[in-house]
């Protein structure tokens, strides 16, 4: 990439403390449209907190976050409206257990966006179709496998047509044989040009789908670069140690 396109999501000087503990210690990150940025690092390095700060589920202590040029930290910004443009997928799926798959996917369309039930269901079915689960529209979360639940959760975020998707360890709670179906959906999204920020330990996925890998430790970005470079030839000692541990 010789000419860098203007970033769609940019983070500058991001800090976050929980009480006396500083979890993020000055993060700068610019994500280009359609870029898949993969975040790795030891547990407690602040990866999830970084992701959760991107839509202010965690309130940053300091720093600037902009999405499509809109300052997410500004008082005048309607954060609820902006969150619709930032899809989020959680480790524990967090589907609404009292609603069907379609109900999960259409709830925000109806009650936040204000679409009619039939419009919402049309969009909802399209989103379920994208994750290959239109046949499960009437199923409740408890009737679905973990992989299916996570795909419904992805559809729930997709239905709002976000410009960025955040994935917080989307496959960590899944049985190994169910991981593939979720990664397949994520590859699909990448191919369709979705901008994605992914915290995960799926190194093979990182190797062949990520545009950039970021290694975080102690609340800072230690090193970043193309996946093949980070995995094959890490520069920093801490990165080396982490990669060695992972590939052991």
């Amino acid at each position, binding site marked *: 990439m010789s000419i860098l396109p203007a970033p769609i999501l940019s983070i500058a000087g991001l800090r976050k403390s929980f009480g006396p503990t500083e979890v993020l210690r000055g993060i700068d990150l610019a994500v280009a449209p359609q870029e898949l940025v993969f975040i790795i690092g030891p547990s407690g390095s602040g990866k999830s907190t970084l992701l959760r700060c991107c839509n202010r589920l965690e309130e940053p202590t300091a720093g600037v976050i902009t999405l499509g040029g809109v300052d997410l930290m500004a008082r005048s910004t309607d954060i609820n409206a902006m969150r619709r443009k930032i899809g989020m997928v959680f480790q524990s799926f967090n589907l609404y257990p009292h609603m069907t798959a379609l109900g999960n996917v259409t709830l925000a369309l109806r009650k936040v966006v204000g679409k009619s039930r039939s419009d919402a269901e049309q969009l909802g079915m399209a989103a379920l179709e994208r994750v290959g689960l239109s046949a499960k529209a009437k199923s409740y979360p408890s009737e679905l496998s973990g992989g299916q*639940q996570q795909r419904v959760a992805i559809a729930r975020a997709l239905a709002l047509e976000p410009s960025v998707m955040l994935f917080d360890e989307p496959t960590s709670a899944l049985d190994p044989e169910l991981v593939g179906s979720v990664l397949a959906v994520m590859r699909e999204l990448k191919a369709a040009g979705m901008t994605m920020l992914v915290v995960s330990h799926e190194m093979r996925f990182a190797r062949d789908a990520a545009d950039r890998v970021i290694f975080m430790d102690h609340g800072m970005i230690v090193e970043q670069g193309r996946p093949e470079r980070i995995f094959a030839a890490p520069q920093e000692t801490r990165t080396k140690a982490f990669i060695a541990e992972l590939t052991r």
Partner: protein
Amino acid sequence: MNAFLETFFKPNLIAQYWPDILKGIVVTIEIAFAVVVCGLLLGLLLAVLRSFRITPINALIVVFVDMFRALPPLVIVLIVYFGLPNVGISIPSFAVLWLVLTLVLAAFAEEIFWAGILSVPKGQWDAGRSTGFAYLGTLAWIVLPQAIRLTVPPITNRTVAITKNTALGMVIGVPEILSQATSAQSFSGNATPLMLGALAYVILFIPVVALGRFLETRFAWRRS
């Protein structure tokens, strides 16, 4: 056997006092209905208010809830009915009973709803907020529907227990079932009217208990 029937189920007394008991049933139903509706709504409102975690307001809620849960309802009924007139506030007996039982039910219901709200996993809030719901929207569409389902059994039990306290109306002259039954008992010198009253309570409350069980199964969803 005959003596038993004479004491508890004397036919001519049944005929004579059943109309009074029936009037009592109507009064009991009116008060009970008003107490259940207002008590549960107030309890839910207080639980929602508490979820905003505004310290001074929560302190007030906790003081109110603990007081009304600790005091026997009879004590509150007597204080309000016989005490307040001394400071120039006279409330009709019907209203006293309604007010006191509503506040007691609200106090218990608040604790139960609050526990229900707390038991909904934090991830549900995250999911709601991340799809653009504001705080109240997340509460209304995602958290409360789950919290309320979880609380159907304890709420039903508590509601039945407190609604039965409409019998306290007897001590301040509300003409509900027990009032009617006890005055008929003292006129007739026979326990038959009391048995009629007991029967009336059974007829009244068994459907409520059954409704609770129905709601419990109707609103249950299988957790993964």
